[in-house]
């Protein structure tokens, strides 16, 4: 069974009240949702809190989801709205700052100077642009899926991708010719 068909089956079962089916949806999409939120809000602990809240909201709204819908995009859309609200209020961001400072940066084959430069470049991107970069450049979403998830016009998504990529390449000391 292909992933979209499996998602549709699980969504149908979850809409019928199956918690097991919803748990399988959580297993299938938690990585993508958490990765997206980590990149969009730049704070791992806060991102995981928001991912949990987004999944809880998804559970309460699963009846409204169309079977054929892209579940991952839908979840990222819910997560994005929570992230936007949270960053505006700034309440937990400050609270979680200490956790983030102490979080480990495991060795993952990224040069420390690249990591620092890219983290700083990501941090100064506007939230909307950062979210588009996180979906299209990091998670390989299509422009259309990202537009659907974030509720943005397709043209805006394309321009955010181009500008965001250029900013990140600039941080790496590369002139982006795309």
């Amino acid at each position, binding site marked *: 069974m292909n992933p979209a068909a499996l998602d549709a089956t699980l969504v149908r079962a979850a809409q019928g009240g199956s918690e097991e089916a919803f748990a399988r949806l959580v297993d299938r999409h938690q990585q993508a949702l958490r990765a997206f939120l980590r990149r969009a809000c730049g704070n791992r602990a806060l991102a995981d809190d928001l991912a949990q809240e987004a999944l809880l909201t998804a559970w309460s709204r699963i009846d409204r989801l169309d079977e054929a819908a892209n579940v991952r995009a839908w979840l990222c859309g819910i997560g994005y709205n929570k992230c936007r609200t949270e960053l505006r209020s700034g309440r937990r961001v400050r609270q979680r700052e200490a956790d983030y400072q102490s979080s480990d940066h495991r060795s*993952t*084959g990224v040069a420390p100077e690249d990591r620092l430069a890219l983290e700083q470049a990501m941090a100064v991107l506007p939230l909307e642009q950062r979210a588009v970069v996180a979906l299209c450049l990091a998670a390989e979403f299509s422009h259309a899926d990202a537009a659907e998830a974030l509720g943005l016009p397709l043209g805006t998504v394309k321009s955010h991708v181009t500008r965001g990529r250029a900013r990140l390449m600039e941080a790496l000391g590369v002139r982006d010719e795309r």
Partner: protein
Amino acid sequence: MSDDDARLAAFFAASEPPARDLAFSAGVMEAVARARFRREMARLALFSLVGGVVLWAVWPSLAPVLVQVGGGLAPAGAALVVAAAVLLLADGRAMSALGLRS
């Protein structure tokens, strides 16, 4: 993939959570169970409230009828309560014995 794209991909890969995270998934399902419990409690509280209000509204006309038939129904009511208690205490064994429960 160019060298610069590879550097960018490595940076993004560094923030990738594990593909399977049992603690995280269990945390989400625990929160779902709590939310479902709260929702169920709210539903029951609403039903109780509506039932109470309906009873309060019809009580003036219901009370005389109950008093009138209460004497005759009391033994049957008591027998029903005892039967229900026995069924509950037997934890479904009586229903199983009657073939009403597998």
